């Protein structure tokens, strides 16, 4: 049977279900908190050239778009002629996978009737990969943990026992890290079973013509959307905190008909610490930001990503050179969409939001007994927390909500069962949203104390403490972040620090920028914000000229 256009549409639709099933398998079996609770993963199907055909609608853009490129690296390094049925390939190389060692990518070649026809790939953030742990303090990637080069996790169905031993010997959580490697392999297998059933149903033995159909339709839709953006050159600069010195992220967008080029020339050079970003991760987030504004309906695949040409000069902080440390590359990566959207605003006024808190305020906590002889066990706790998003042209920003990342927070009650800490506060940070006709989203305040007999260390990886989210079209800036103890002691926004027993850490997360002049805000909205304590009386008067009439 020769497939018709409707058959191709149905198969395309089915592939989305296939990769959803692949992702679901991973979410349900993974150990990594960030996979399970926060959806920090991606899963997809590729043709034999390494073009991504479909991707599960889960996870965060950093994984999603970076994994799209990874399969071509596997093809180049291993060679199609060396692929056998039963092979499973693996890497966590930050420059070939998704940007830091904690992310493991597993690629499984797909065979049909003995012929190689494509790949399933998936990526997940594992609990531990050795080294210094998840934090910015390393000086080189070597200190950040074990790097697994592109290699075979299994060949012809035989798992590489040496690789497993090697990983087990180098990580703090051998059962969980190795368990997650198996989960990744199993999720590809689940996808493969479903794909084979579909090929049976439609009576075809290859993916090439279906892949061509998907690529052509997606690329065409994306290019049509780009062509609706007025041609021109648009430049934007945003200064953020960085680690040891402020960082300028500079982008020049060139729109020429159906082409769009984002060039990060002019961006600051590399840091001596782990805030550096491999270029693949920069491309992932730049592309995500542009796609949200220009072609949000087109599904993610190589065809829809291709029209966005993203360039960062090697050696800049957004295209870090080996062996730079890259552990917390997410911080700058999350800030990239604000920069490209700011440039795009010049071309498409009234579409993009103001700048937001953007970079997640992840916190990795190590609780330890103050008396080592007490026998009290230590614990590792990871929390995801979000500040405010920028106000939109016609609506307020979202308070305490992740953007551009797509992760979720964890329950405080559940976290307090995991480790000996008390979270005394996790609520909205009053007055932190940037003033504007549309108000920026509010940040949040979190207060954490070790339980009796404990102190804790935490890895700070927080931005927008010095340089706040800017408003747009006359909107005000969002509040800066603050990292301190409740007794007033100011702490560093990045790096490992200790909080002694009896002291409380207070994190005040940044707010989003406002949109439009504050005096244009509807009086009823100002009054409602005041009544709900979302803004202070002083802000109502000073920012909005509202005196409660």
């Amino acid at each position, binding site marked *: 049977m020769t497939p018709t256009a409707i058959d191709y549409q149905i198969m395309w639709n089915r592939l989305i279900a296939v990769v959803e099933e692949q992702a679901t398998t991973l979410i349900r079996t993974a150990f990594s908190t960030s996979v399970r609770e926060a959806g920090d993963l991606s899963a997809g199907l590729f043709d034999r050239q390494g073009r991504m055909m479909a991707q599960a609608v889960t996870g965060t853009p950093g994984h999603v778009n970076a994994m799209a490129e990874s399969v071509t690296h596997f093809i180049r390094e291993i060679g199609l002629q060396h692929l056998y049925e039963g092979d499973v390939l693996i890497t966590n190389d930050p420059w070939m996978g998704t940007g830091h060692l904690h992310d493991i990518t597993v690629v499984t070649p797909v065979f049909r009737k003995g012929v190689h026809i494509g790949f399933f790939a998936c990526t997940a953030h594992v609990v531990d990969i050795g080294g210094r742990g998840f934090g910015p303090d390393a000086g080189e990637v070597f200190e950040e943990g074990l790097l697994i080069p592109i290699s075979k996790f299994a060949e012809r169905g035989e798992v590489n026992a040496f690789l497993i031993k090697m990983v087990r010997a180098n990580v703090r959580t051998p*059962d969980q890290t190795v368990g997650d490697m198996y989960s990744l392999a199993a999720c590809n297998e689940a996808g493969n079973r479903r794909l084979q059933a579909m090929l049976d149903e439609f009576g075809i033995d290859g993916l090439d013509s279906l892949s061509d159909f998907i690529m052509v339709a997606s690329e065409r839709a994306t290019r049509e959307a780009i062509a609706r953006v007025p041609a021109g050159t648009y430049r934007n600069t945003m200064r953020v905190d960085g680690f040891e010195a402020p960082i300028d992220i500079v982008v020049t967008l060139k729109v020429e008909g159906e082409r769009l080029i984002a060039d990060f020339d002019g961006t600051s050079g590399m840091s001596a610490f782990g805030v550096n970003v491999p270029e693949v991760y920069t491309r992932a987030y730049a592309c995500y930001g542009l796609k949200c504004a220009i072609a949000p309906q087109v599904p993610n695949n190589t065809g829809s990503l291709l029209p966005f040409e993203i360039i960062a000069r090697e050696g800049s902080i957004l295209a870090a050179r080996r062996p730079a440390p890259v552990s917390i590359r997410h911080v700058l990566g999350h800030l990239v969409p604000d920069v490209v959207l700011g440039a795009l605003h010049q071309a498409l006024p009234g579409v993009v939001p103001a700048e937001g808190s953007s970079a997640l305020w992840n916190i990795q906590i190590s609780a330890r007994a103050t008396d080592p002889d007490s026998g009290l066990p230590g614990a590792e706790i990871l929390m995801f927390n979000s500040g405010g998003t920028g106000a939109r042209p016609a609506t307020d920003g979202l308070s305490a*909500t992740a953007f551009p990342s797509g992760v979720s927070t964890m329950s405080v009650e559940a976290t307090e069962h995991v480790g000996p800490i008390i979270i005394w506060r996790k609520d909205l940070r009053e007055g932190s949203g940037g003033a504007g006709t549309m108000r920026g989203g509010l940040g949040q305040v979190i207060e954490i104390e070790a339980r009796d007999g404990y102190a804790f260390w935490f890895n700070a990886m927080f931005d927008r403490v010095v340089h706040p989210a800017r408003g747009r079209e006359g909107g005000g800036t969002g509040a800066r972040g603050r990292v301190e103890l409740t007794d007033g002691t100011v702490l560093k926004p990045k790096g490992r620090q200790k909080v002694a027993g009896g002291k409380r850490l207070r994190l005040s997360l940044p707010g989003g920028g406002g949109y439009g002049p504050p005096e244009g805000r509807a009086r009823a909205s100002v009054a409602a914000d005041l009544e709900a304590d979302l803004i202070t009386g002083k802000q109502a008067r000073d920012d909005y000229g509202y005196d409660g009439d």
Partner: protein
Amino acid sequence: MPLPDIRVGVDIGGTFTDVALQTPAGLSTGKVLTDYAEPERAILAAIEVAAGQAGVALGEIAQVIHGTTLVTNALIQRRGARTAFITTEGFRDVIEMRSENRFEQYDLNLELPRPLVPRKDRFTLNERMGPTGEVLLALEEAEVRAMADRIAGGGYEAVAIGLMHAYANDAHERAMARALSEAAPGLPISLSSVISPQMRELQRFNTVVANAYVQPQVAGYLSRLVERLRGAGIAAPVFLMHSGGGLITVETAAQQPVRLLESGPAGGAIYAADYARAHGLDKVLSFDMGGTTAKICLIEDGTPKTANTFEVARTYRFKKGSGMTVSTPVVEMVEIGAGGGSIASVDQMGRIQVGPQSAGSEPGPACYQRGGTEPTVTDANLLLGRLDPETFAGGAIPLSTDKAETALQTIAAAEAITSPEAAFGVTEMVDENMANAARVHTVENGRDIEQFTMIAFGGGAPLHACRQCEKLGIDLALIPPGAGVGSAIGFLRAPFSYEATRGLFQTLDGFDPAAVNAALEGMEAEARTFVEAGARGERTAEKLIAYMRYKGQGWEIPVPLPHKRFDGADVPDIRDAFETAYRTLFGRIIEGLQPEITNWSLTVATVLPDPVGVTRIDSGSPAAAGRTRRFFDAALRCDVEAVEVERTAMVPGAVIDGPAIIVEPETSTIVTSAYRAVGQADGCLLLLRKEIVS
């Protein structure tokens, strides 16, 4: 104790109020339009219709069983009481911050659902419990009194109290409630430690807030209903269907209305489960397709699968995450925006998309000739010959093939294909969407869908059942009679039941039998009180579930355990039970990791009488065939000549091989070329794949 002779089930849905009256002579059913202003008026009207048909006096009715979408609608439409929420200082915004994520990645203008209680009505107390119920910060009496006075003077109609870790120690919640009831006698108060005593503050707070928010309205409605029934001479006790698939008294329902969410669909699942039991089917997928949505539920060993959390009031295209997660026992269902009224369109990639927007019943599909112009699934089915324009809805709604064709031309033009080809594309896409949802749901539960039998009901399901089975690799489907009022019939077949839950966090290493036994005793007493209120003296059974996971994981899985007094020697058995459940779901276990228990659930339910067994009939004599019609067989990709058979002709043993169409006033069953239909002893239609008949 035998069931009373004459019982009536009433289901209030969005459009229709359905009734099913059981008498010794059989079942009579009725349907009237839902009355939004006074729902109880429609109930009485529907009961009168059914009683009239059956020749029963209203006074003879011995039991009224009721389910309603009223609670769900009140949450969706934000038509609840002015509610105050009292919580722990530092956690005022839990219900507003939600899980801090966006349910749609690429929408820059996304709006999150607003909390039921706005920030100005959320108040905090300086107090704090720890995770094991230890007091970290004591609650001051003076603060409690001040808060009570403040709420009393605030003009609130209901109050929810939800404090951190209250599932582990409810002392502070109770102290606050006592002070409030002194300061404001009669003001309804809901406590999180009563309504949903489980770990995870967002779900627990959502649940207690939702309960308080709908309580005055639901309590008022229920008392008016009882009064109205009394006035009409129905003195029988009234019971409510709860979302977990059982019955509670009207008094319990008025106290815990959050348990009534989704009671109608739960009735549908019970209806399917009853047929599963009668036919001896241990793995069943129920498939209920209406005008706007399709609902899928797994029924194993005659029991619908339940969960202890679910998401209500989704605001964004039925999208996961766009509603409000509440933790209350519920029959677990997957609902997708796929129904007869679902609207088809062509996206930017040139792909046909169907739903979730629906033309609903007004204006309805284009072929209804009531002003609808957009192409729907029903229009496509009409064009493909699967519906008869003359006899649809018993001839009450004449269908226009021309209007359907015109509507589908927009799709055909965009795709450069013919209208019938476009119609095929539309039905195939909606079938694909439903099949995918069913497949993912079974995978999530670690099941293989090909081993399941489908039970299809609701107006649209018989049209699509065979195609679903083809796509899913299912050999057998059952289409029960009376499917148009399935939920109301299901109410009559539900047990009295109550599920009590407790958060009690323990690693298996640190298993504390005394604490567990004490909690279980309390849960059993609680559940029994509610069940006994309805089921005086009936035989009951208990079902105990521990929610467990490996230490370090974030999702618990339900682990069935024997209901007994535990001691330390039971730990290996609990571990075995966990590993069995884990292996079923995930295909393996993980050596070297410690399991832990987070929540417990104990259900006490009356034991249902065994249904009359039905022996499957695979073959017999040919059914009396009527005229022939043509319809489009999707698997064959061509029109086929089909025999039309009246459903009434499908007597036990009557056989018709596909392609065939079995017609009845409410719907039509499409038997595709790959299937055979056989009438069963209880009036069901059995669809079986011809290959397995051999």
